[in-house]
């Protein structure tokens, strides 16, 4: 068998105007199963059993019986006077120096971990003195009392500048005494607001982001546990506030096209682009309901499509289309169409821009339905493939852009990496590598990289690490590409994919404000961003996706992949992705394997070096 490796060299400026969006349709079962329903913001809450604070703000802690450690995060932490325990006789601890280049630009970490469990009552001092008082340092403190947990979430997913944001905080296992939220604006300013009792045992705070961009939100809650011991917990979240660049501006009309499909025209009021350099794309979606023969309102299908906003703004409309066979299958009358849950999300992080629970929909003209198929057929999922794209000229004499143009497997790294994760020796046949080190892309931008790469090949399956799993499913959902032509058992395979997000995205943003962020903020990988994005991924895409999770080998002491990230994540985790957050409902879960971590420089070997899995993925991959 021949083996071809092609290294992808991508243009700096990706031309995306000639991609072809799919008319995404999902069956009504996806609505009832919740696959395409935007969960409430409490469903993507951030929780924490640790505290991350500037070193000057914490000088002691009360360790308990669980994992107790103090981590100093600073530039050159080895130069700091750093210890825990009583002055001249520091407590026995294990010390490690850790690379944090994936999270910050200039900081490293120095971790001190207690070797023995403590009684949970004795206060222990922390010494953290900088060689220069001007130097910043932060402490991540895990007191080992893991039943005391802070959970925070925003009150809405709608975060436009000027629109108030409510923050909810709740402490489990302790009584909240007081809380504060510290906001970091996109331009670097910092604001502090108190949290107030919400009357139901939690705390609540309100702020109004007056600036578009990424805000960091630190929630700091002091509490008293059931033994009367003070406990501090913090969460670090990222909030993306974007202008409401597109909003529904009137009634949606529904009419039947000559090809039989039902077209929904959504009138939009579009703001002019403030940044002309980047194309603005939004994802629209809504549920289609109608009345069946018995007079009941029944879900017919779910419809979605990517729409590019014109830079000049103004009155526009977006067209979305549904296959008429959904109506036939549901036994529903298109004249009784009712739309629900119309949503518009910016594709940069899938931030919610507009939401109408019951938009007006006016059926226009007559409708003629085909005979109902015996079952859902694939052509109902994404409409008919377009015969031609607008503006594309035929080039009959054109040869392929690559030397072979064959059927390939694309191997891809994830967000912000400096080495290719997969061991290519484990793969055979034709495969190509996506390599763009140090990148920070939204899922949409990442997917379009794949689309562009796919143009050099007839067909393409994808094996992706981490965020590349998001990108592959995003591509298959929203755009026609070489991935659609791939044949074989598995179109998409993902390893260590944070389908539900990772707490590290928020923490990296907070630390990045102090130390410079490694590759930039990646809102798509926050719990909020991932959850919003995932509500656009229908079951037929999930069914074509196979995934694996891993975590550390749970030894008596080294029960982590990376001690810093371990303190920010819920066990078990692979150092970046918690096992629970690596699950994709409706997809093919290939299992969880211990003894493997997310990347190199962690306790156990990197998960993408697992030859057994790699060989299997290579064997099963569609190409």
């Amino acid at each position, binding site marked *: 068998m021949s083996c071809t490796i092609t290294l992808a060299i991508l243009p700096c400026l990706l031309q995306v105007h000639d991609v072809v969006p799919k008319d995404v349709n999902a069956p009504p079962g996806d609505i009832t199963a919740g696959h395409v329903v935007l969960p409430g913001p409490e469903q993507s809450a951030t929780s924490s059993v640790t505290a991350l604070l500037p070193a000057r703000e914490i000088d002691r802690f009360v360790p308990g019986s669980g994992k107790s450690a103090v981590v100093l995060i600073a530039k050159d932490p080895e130069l700091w006077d750093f210890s825990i325990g009583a002055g001249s006789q520091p407590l026995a601890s294990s010390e490690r120096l850790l690379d944090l280049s994936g999270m910050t630009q200039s900081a490293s970490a120095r971790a001190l971990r207690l070797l023995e469990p403590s009684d949970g009552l004795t206060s222990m001092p922390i010494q953290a003195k900088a060689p220069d008082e001007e130097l910043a340092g932060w402490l991540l403190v895990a007191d080992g009392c893991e039943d005391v947990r802070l959970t925070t979430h925003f009150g809405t997913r709608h975060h436009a500048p000027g629109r108030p944001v409510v923050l909810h905080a709740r402490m489990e296992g302790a009584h909240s005494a007081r809380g504060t939220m510290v906001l970091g604006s996109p331009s670097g300013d910092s604001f502090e607001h108190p949290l107030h009792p919400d009357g139901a045992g939690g705390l609540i705070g309100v702020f109004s982001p007056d600036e578009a961009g990424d805000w960091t939100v630190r929630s700091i809650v002091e509490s008293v546990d059931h033994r009367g011991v003070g406990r501090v917990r913090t969460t670090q979240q990222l909030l993306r506030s974007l202008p409401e660049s597109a909003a529904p501006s009137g009634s949606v009309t529904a009419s039947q096209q000559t090809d039989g499909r039902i077209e929904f025209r959504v009138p939009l009021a579009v703001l002019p682009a403030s940044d002309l350099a980047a194309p603005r794309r939004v994802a629209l979606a809504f549920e289609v309901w109608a009345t069946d023969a018995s007079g009941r309102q029944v879900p017919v299908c779910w419809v979605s499509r990517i729409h590019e906003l014109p830079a000049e703004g103004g009155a526009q409309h977006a067209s979305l289309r549904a296959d008429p066979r959904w109506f036939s299958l549901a036994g529903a009358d298109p004249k009784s169409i009712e739309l629900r849950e119309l949503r518009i999300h910016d594709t940069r992080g899938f931030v919610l821009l507009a939401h109408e629970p019951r938009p007006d929909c006016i059926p226009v003209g007559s409708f003629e339905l085909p005979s109902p198929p015996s079952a859902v057929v694939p052509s109902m999922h994404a409409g008919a*493939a377009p015969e031609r794209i607008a503006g*594309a000229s035929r080039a009959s004499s054109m040869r*392929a852009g690559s030397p072979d143009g064959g059927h390939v497997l694309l191997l891809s790294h994830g967000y912000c990496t400096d080495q290719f994760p997969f061991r290519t020796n484990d793969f055979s046949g034709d495969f190509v590598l996506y390599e763009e080190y140090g990148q920070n892309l939204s899922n949409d931008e990442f997917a379009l990289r794949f689309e562009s790469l796919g143009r050099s090949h*007839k067909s393409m399956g994808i094996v992706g690490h981490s965020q590349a799993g998001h990108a592959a499913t995003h591509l298959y959902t929203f755009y*026609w590409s070489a991935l659609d032509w791939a044949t074989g058992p598995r179109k998409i395979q993902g390893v260590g994919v944070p389908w539900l997000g990772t707490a590290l995205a928020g923490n990296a943003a907070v630390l990045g404000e102090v130390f410079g962020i490694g590759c930039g903020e990646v809102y798509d990988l926050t719990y909020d961003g991932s959850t919003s994005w995932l509500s656009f991924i229908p079951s037929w895409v999930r069914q074509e996706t196979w995934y694996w999770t891993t975590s550390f080998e749970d030894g008596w002491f080294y029960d982590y992949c990376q001690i810093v990230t371990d303190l920010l994540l819920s066990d078990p985790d692979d150092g970046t992705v918690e096992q629970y957050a690596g699950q994709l409902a409706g997809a093919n879960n290939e299992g969880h394997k211990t003894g493997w971590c997310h990347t190199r420089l962690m306790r156990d070997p990197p998960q993408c070096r697992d030859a057994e899995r790699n060989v299997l993925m290579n064997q099963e991959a569609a190409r």
Partner: protein
Amino acid sequence: MNERLPSRWLLTAMLVPVATLVADELVVESTLVQPVPDDSGNSSALVEFVVPSSGDPVVTTGVRLSLRLEHPWVGDLRVTLRPPDGSTELVMLDRPGLVPAGFPGPFGCGGDDLDVVFDDSASASAQDTCSLVASPVLAGPLRPLQALQSLSGIDPEGSWSLTVTDLQPGDSGQLIGASLLVEFEIDCDQDGLPDECTCPGDLDGDRVVGGADLSGLLSQWNGTGEADLDANGVVDGADLAILISAWGSCR
């Protein structure tokens, strides 16, 4: 008058093509299976359709081409048809679905197989038809890239060449069968346009005025019938003169 219009030959390619004249149709059938080599350059699957001489001057008035192919990526394929006069090679299909970007993409339509009748009157174009799920991806009557109507007016007799070429590496296939349907009409004056032939004296309709026709005339001498070539009510010397003057093959 000899009425033989319109006429039709149906020829189907065979391993050893055999022409059979059945009434107005000439049928050649084949079970030929030929490989369509991958990215073959000059090596193509080639089918020769031999249209034998009918003895009459004829002109092509319509052509349809049926083709069955197994191939996992029809976007690789170029299909051409060259008529016997060698003048014009018509392109039936040229890497269908090929667009520089978007869908189906720079490698054309990735669907499987082809069972198509190239027919100018079809509503859909073979070049623009593509589906992720249909198999064969090109099926039924489809318009060719270049209209077969342009073959109207040529003499159909001789060898027609069907060529199937794979122009892109990665996939190969095989030609399962093909057939060519030619509609023709008599063109007595050989001006490339159908016309009606007159052949006075050809009483038996074999396009030759000969002894059998003379016998027929003599058997009706002084009587009436089709041998009354000048239509004066009696078969006589004037009719004999007309027959003798037309002696030989009709033109």
